[in-house]
C-alpha cells in the first residue's frame, strides 16, 4: 500500500525536527519537490501513511492535501481539521450511523454540518466541493455555503435531512460556478419546485443535476432552458413530475448525456410522440446510466432499446417490471456492469439476466413488497444461482428474498469466487434453510472461505455462533459486517472481534450478544471506525467500563422508553480525537 513516492529524496533530505521553519528556507529543492510529488497522492490511506514517516513528510503532506475525507464527523472536530490542513478545497463528511436509514436512530440525533461550514467559511474560502452523507443540513447552512465560497462548484447530499427547497434556492441563486447539484435519497421539505427557476439566465456551468428525490413540479420551461445552456451537462436525473414528452424535449437539448434519470414513464402518448421519444433516445450515443422509470408501464419500454446497448448501469429499483417485459428489455443490454431491480421480475427475470449480461459485476434486488407476510412473492435462491451461472464477474450483490438454502449459496460462491460485497437479506428474521431446516451457517461459511477478497458482508437467516467462528477465522479482508437476529451467545461476537484483522465497521441488532462480547473488543475498537449494537444484551455498567478503560473511544447509549434502567438498548462506540460530543441531545448518554 505505501509505495515510497520519493526514493531518491529520502537519502538526501534531512529529517530533523526543526524542519517546520525550513519549509520556506533557502534550499527549495527538497521541500518543493516533496510537495510536488505528494500532490499526486490522492488516496487517503497513502496520505495517512506518508504523514507518519517523519515531520518533514507530515508537513509536506498536510500542506498538499486538498481533499478531505471524514468517515465519521464526530471522530474529529472542525478546529482540529482547520489547524492541520490549510489548503482544503474538497470535503466529504459522513454523519449518522448507517442504521439511521432504517429508523433506528431518533430524530435530532446530531451530525449537523453547521459548525463545520462556519469553520470552513473562515479557513477555506476557496472551498469547491462538499459531499455529505447522513448529515443534517439546515437552510441556514445552505445559505452560508452559497454565499461564503465564491468558487464553490459541487454539492452532493446523500441521505441528508433538515433542509427545504428554500435552501436550494440559495444555492441556485448564488453559486455562479456550480457544476454539480446532486441530491439523493433525501427527504426534505419540498415546498415547491421554484428553486430551479432561481438559476440565473446566464448560468450554464452545470455538469451534474440530480433532483430525482424531490417531488414537486419544477417549471419545465426553466428546466429546458437550463439544460440548453449547460453544454457540458452529462448527468441529468429529473423527478416524477417530468412527463415523457417533456423528457423527449430535454433529450433533444442534451444528447450528450451520459447518465439519465427519467421522470414518470406513464403517459398516454400519441403515436407520433412515441416515435419522437424513441429517436430521442437513440440519439443519446453516450448514455451509460439509466434510472428513474417511475410508474413504468411496459408499453413504452421499447423506446429505450436503442439506448440500451451502451448502458453499463441500469437502475430499475422504482420500476415494478414483470419477468417477461424485463427479460425483453435486458436482452438489449449486453454491456451491463451494474443492475438494480425489484423482485417483481422474479427468478425468471434473473435467469434472463444470467443469459443476457455476461459482464455483470453488481446486482441489487430490492423487495417490492417488504411486508408481504403471506404471499412471499419475489425472488428465491434459484434466481440468484441463475445469475451466478451466467455472470462470473459478479462481485457485488445485495439480495432480498424470503427463502434460501445453504447449498444454493455454496453453488453461488463457487461460480463467483470474487465477491467483495455479499449482502444477503432473508426477510423473515431467523429463517433456516427452507429445504433442510438447518441454520444458514454453512452458507456464510462457504462465502468467507471461498471469497478471500470479501470486504463487506451482511448476514441473515437462522445463524448460530458457528457462522461467526467461520467469519472470524476466514474473513481476512472483511471491513464491514452487518448482523441482525443472529448468533447464539457472546462467543459469536467474540470470534469476530478476535479474528477479522481489517474490520472497520460492525453493526449489530437484535442478537444475544452481551457484556462479555462487548468488552472482548476493547483493543479492537480503536482500530475500527465504529461499533453499533442495538437490542442486544448489553448493560449500561458494561458500557461505562468500556468508556473508562478506553478514553479515546466515545461510548454513547440511547435508551428505549420502557426498558430497564440497566439496559443499554442502543450502543454506539467510535474512536475520536475530539473527545465526547458537545452537541449530544438529551437522549444520547455519553459515558
Amino acid at each position, binding site marked *: 500500500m505505501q509505495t515510497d513516492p520519493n526514493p531518491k529524496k529520502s537519502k538526501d533530505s534531512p529529517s530533523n525536527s526543526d524542519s517546520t521553519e525550513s519549509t520556506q528556507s533557502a534550499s527549495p529543492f527538497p521541500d518543493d519537490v516533496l510537495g510536488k510529488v505528494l500532490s499526486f497522492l490522492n488516496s487517503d490511506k497513502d496520505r495517512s501513511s506518508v504523514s507518519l514517516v517523519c515531520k518533514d513528510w507530515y508537513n509536506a503532506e498536510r500542506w498538499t492535501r486538498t481533499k478531505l475525507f471524514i468517515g465519521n464527523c464526530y471522530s474529529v472536530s472542525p478546529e482540529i481539521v482547520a489547524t492541520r490542513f490549510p489548503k482544503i478545497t474538497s470535503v466529504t463528511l459522513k454523519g449518522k450511523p448507517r*442504521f439511521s*436509514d*432504517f*429508523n*433506528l436512530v*431518533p*430524530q435530532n440525533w446530531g451530525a449537523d454540518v453547521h459548525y463545520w461550514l462556519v469553520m470552513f467559511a473562515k479557513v477555506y474560502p476557496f472551498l469547491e466541493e462538499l459531499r455529505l452523507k447522513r448529515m443534517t443540513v439546515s437552510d441556514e447552512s445552505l445559505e452560508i455555503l452559497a454565499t461564503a465560497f465564491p468558487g464553490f462548484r459541487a454539492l452532493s447530499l446523500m*441521505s441528508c435531512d433538515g433542509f427545504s427547497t428554500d435552501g436550494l434556492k440559495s444555492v441556485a441563486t448564488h453559486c455562479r460556478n456550480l457544476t454539480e447539484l446532486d441530491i439523493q*435519497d*433525501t*427527504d426534505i421539505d419540498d415546498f415547491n419546485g421554484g428553486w430551479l427557476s432561481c438559476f440565473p439566465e446566464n448560468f450554464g456551468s452545470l455538469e451534474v443535476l440530480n433532483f430525482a*428525490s424531490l417531488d414537486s413540479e419544477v417549471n419545465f420551461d426553466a428546466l429546458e432552458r437550463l439544460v440548453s445552456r449547460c453544454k457540458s451537462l452529462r448527468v441529468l436525473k429529473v423527478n416524477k413530475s417530468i412527463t415523457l414528452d417533456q423528457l423527449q424535449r430535454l433529450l433533444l437539448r442534451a444528447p450528450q448525456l451520459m447518465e439519465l434519470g427519467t421522470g414518470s414513464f*406513464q403517459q398516454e402518448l400519441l*403515436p407520433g410522440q412515441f*416515435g419522437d421519444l*424513441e429517436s430521442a433516445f437513440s440519439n443519446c450515443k453516450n448514455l451509460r446510466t439509466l434510472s428513474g422509470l*417511475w*410508474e413504468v*408501464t*411496459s*408499453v413504452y419500454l*421499447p423506446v429505450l432499446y436503442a439506448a440500451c446497448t451502451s448502458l453499463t448501469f441500469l437502475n430499475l*429499483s*422504482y*420500476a*415494478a417490471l*414483470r419477468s*417477461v417485459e424485463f427479460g425483453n428489455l435486458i436482452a438489449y443490454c449486453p454491456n451491463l456492469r451494474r443492475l438494480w431491480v425489484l423482485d417483481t421480475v*422474479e427468478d425468471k427475470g434473473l435467469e434472463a439476466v444470467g443469459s443476457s449480461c455476461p459482464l455483470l459485476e453488481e446486482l441489487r434486488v*430490492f*423487495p*417490492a*413488497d*417488504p*411486508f*408481504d*407476510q*403471506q*404471499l*412471499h*412473492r419475489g425472488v*428465491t435462491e*434459484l434466481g440468484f444461482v441463475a445469475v451466478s451461472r451466467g455472470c462470473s464477474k459478479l462481485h457485488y450483490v445485495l439480495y*432480498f428474498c*424470503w*427463502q434460501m438454502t445453504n447449498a444454493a449459496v455454496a453453488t453461488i460462491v463457487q461460480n463467483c469466487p470474487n465477491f467483495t460485497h455479499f449482502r444477503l*437479506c432473508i*426477510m*423473515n*428474521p*431467523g429463517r433456516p434453510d427452507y429445504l433442510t431446516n438447518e441454520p444458514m451457517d454453512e452458507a456464510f461459511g462457504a462465502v468467507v472461505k471461498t471469497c478471500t477478497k470479501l470486504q463487506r458482508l451482511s448476514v441473515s437467516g437462522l445463524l448460530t455462533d458457528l457462522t461467526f467462528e467461520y467469519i472470524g477465522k476466514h474473513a481476512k479482508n472483511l471491513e464491514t459486517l*452487518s448482523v*441482525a*437476529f443472529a448468533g447464539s451467545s457472546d462467543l459469536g461476537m467474540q470470534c469476530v472481534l478476535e479474528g477479522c484483522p481489517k474490520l472497520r465497521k460492525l453493526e449489530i*441488532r*437484535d442478537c*444475544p450478544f452481551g457484556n462479555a462480547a462487548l468488552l472482548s473488543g476493547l483493543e479492537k475498537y480503536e482500530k475500527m471506525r465504529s461499533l453499533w449494537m442495538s*437490542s442486544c*444484551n448489553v448493560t449500561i455498567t458494561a458500557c461505562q467500563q468500556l468508556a473508562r478503560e478506553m478514553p479515546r473511544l466515545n461510548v454513547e447509549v440511547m435508551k*428505549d422508553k420502557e426498558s430497564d434502567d440497566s439496559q443499554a438498548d442502543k450502543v454506539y462506540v467510535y474512536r475520536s480525537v475530539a473527545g465526547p460530543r458537545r452537541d449530544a441531545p438529551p437522549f444520547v448518554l455519553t459515558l
Partner: protein
Amino acid sequence: MEKTPDKISSSSEKNEVLNLKETELRLGLPGSEFLDKKATGFSLFGKDLKDENNKNIFSGAKRVFSDAIDGSNKWGLCTNRGSEVDLGKNDVLFSPRGANGGVKNTNILQSSHPAKEVPPQPVEGKKDENGSTASKAQVVGWPPIRSLHKNRLTTNLSRNNDVKGKSESSCLYVKVSMDGAPYLRKVDLKTYCSYAELSSALEKMFSCFTIGQYASHGLRGKEDLNECHLMDLLDRSEYVLTYEDKDGDWMLVGDVPWEMFTDMCKRLRIMKGSEASGLAPRVIEKCKSQN
C-alpha cells in the same frame, strides 16, 4: 417458488392467521361474535377470509381488547399492504368501519416516532405480550430498506395496480365470443406476446377463423397495422376480431401495441365481417386517401 393461494388453506398458515386475528382490535364485547362477518374478514388483511371457526378467533379477544384500551403503542400490526398502523389513532380502533375503505390503497405510514421494536420471535426472554403473535408483527427497521425507497415504491405500486385494475394476478383471462357459436371461450392474454400468437390460438379454438392473416406481421411495440392490408382482409374475410376496452367501446384488434392492448382489453368478440365494416371507418378512409 410455491405461491400461497389467496385462500389460506394450509393449517399452519391458518394458525398464523388466527393468531393475528387474536390481536385484532375490534369493537364489541370481549369474546362475542361480530355481526358483520365480511368486515371481520376484511379488517386488517384486505382479503375476504372465509373462516368457519369464527368462535375460536374470538376466544382471545377479551385480553386483546383490554390491552388495546391501555393505549400502549406496543406493536405494529401487519396489514395487507404493510402499513404500520399507529394504534393511537382512532380509525384503527373502529376497525369494522375502517376496513372496507381503508386498507387497499394506504401507503406505508412512516410514523414520526419509530414504533416500538418488537422481536420477531421471543428472543432471549424479552417480554412478549401476546405470545406468538409478535412473530408476525412488524419490526422497526426490518427489512433494512430505506424508508424513502419504501414510500416511493408503495406509491408507484399502488398507482400501477390501480391503473392495471388487478393487484397480484399474473394471468389475464378474457371471454371470447364468436358470432354464431353456441358458447364462449376464455383465453389468458398473458400467455401470448403478440397479436400473431393470439390469433393463431384463437384460430385453433374457432377453426373457421381467418383473422390470423392480418395480424401475422408479428406486431410488436410501435409497429402499426398496415391499414391497407386490413382493408383487403376485411373485404375478403368472414370474421373480424374486436375487443371491448375499459371504456366499454368495441375496438378493432391490432391498432395499438400489444402491451397496451392487454392492458385495455376486457373481452374479445369475433364479429362477422359484414358487421365489422362499420367498425373502422377511419381506417377505410385512410386507405382510400393513400390509394
